């Protein structure tokens, strides 16, 4: 199982906001919404699109390529054309730092 990796400072993340990161062997997107942090793969399961470049509305991120939306809390697809969830990674905040642990499922 992979370890938590320090990825950002709490103060550096706007709310709402998103940040694309390279963590170990994955490219992920870190979100901050209503004071809480979430992290999912930077991969739209429809066409492999970069979710980090999409628009964030509440807890939904829209893929810039074809508009598929995903719930950033669960990774679940909310609209077509995506039908399969994207991977969710564990996040924790300790003091001023945000940590991510890559889901190796």
């Amino acid at each position, binding site marked *: 199982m992979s370890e938590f990796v320090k990825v950002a400072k709490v103060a550096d993340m706007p709310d709402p906001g998103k940040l694309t990161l*390279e963590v170990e*062997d994955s*490219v992920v997107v870190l979100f901050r919404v209503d004071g809480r942090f979430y992290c999912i793969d930077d*991969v739209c399961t429809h*066409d*492999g699109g*970069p979710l980090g470049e999409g628009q964030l509305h509440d807890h939904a991120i829209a893929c810039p390529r074809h508009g598929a939306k995903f719930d950033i809390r669960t990774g679940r697809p909310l609209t077509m054309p995506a039908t399969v969830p994207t991977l969710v990674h564990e996040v924790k905040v300790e003091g001023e730092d945000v940590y991510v642990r890559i889901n190796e499922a």
Partner: protein
Amino acid sequence: MFGKMDWPGRRDEEWIRTDIRLFKLDKFSLPAAREAAAAAPSSVLSEGVELAGVSVSLDSWPSSNRLDRRWAEQGVLLGSLDQLVVEHGERLRPFLQRRIVNPYYDKFACLHTACWSGGHVLYVPRGVVVDQPVHMLSAMSDGRVDFGHVLVILEDGAEATVLTETAGFGETDGGLHCGATEIIVGRGANLRFVNLQDWGQGVWHFAHQRAVVGRDASLQWTVAALGSRLAKVNQHVGLMGEGASCQVNGVLFTEGKQHLTYHTLQHHEAPHCHSDFLYKAALQDRSRTVWRGMIKVDPGAQKTDGYQRNDNLLLSDHARADSIPGLEIEADDVRCTHGSTSGKVDDELVFYAMSRGFTRREAVRMIVSGFFQQIFDRITIESVRDALGHAIAARVREYN
């Protein structure tokens, strides 16, 4: 040119499904002279085969080579491209100057052109029939690079069988391969070319491969890809002389988080040519393949007969195969067809096999073998058929 060119972007159609953001060129160094000669990994393809000769490179440096006197006396050349361009420059220069692979196609092609070293060359003079296979092995140690350039030249009426193999030492080894393969099949010549890519699963593999086939010549090209972390291969066959034919057989097996991308182009430049591309991929775990094939027919290439097909077998719910066949036809009297299938293992087949006493794993293995059988039947070299069959069967995991 390398400095002027950008890295492929995520919006480039050719790279839209292949993410190389985690590839960091500065983690690698140019091939350095080896401190001591190390043994190359053992060959898979040539086991039990009587060879006309071998050429071996290690970490992009010539390691060893041998050619039977019988063939050397007939003018055949085999060995490291590094060495043979010095010893036989006059002979090889015209072929290298043809730039079969476009050195400016993309940044990886530029990188290869600027930095190539090692690699192999086979030259078969006019009318010489080499009736024993030639073996070329490019090996790479963990974390190193391979910028090998492979050049195969068959003059008019010549015949040869070439087994090429790229291999690492450990299953999880990393590294960078940025290579090119150039194949010239002269008028009436006949080449069987086999390539097994079996790097460790941490290797970045970028390759440009192009063959040009002359009048009434034939090429059978078998590609097997099992290794690497991410592979992006452009395979291009140019049918340049009237009556040329080529058959391409592709076998891909992926696991873990491997990502293999193949872009194939069968380019009909002359009339009465025949091409037949068949790629089959089996995927397990979270691996992914992308196959994008194109049949291009030039305005003068009447009576073309072109076929392309890609079949994918998904062994897990998380694997993904993208298949994008395409046609670009500018002649009006041709027969060009294509097909693509993607599916999972049929539970009823597994149930039937298990009811006859097989375990689930044995059942899946049989189904995978059956899936590839169509390609194995087309491979006429027994050692290659056996090596691929065993390598794939050993990789199939247990699924519930």
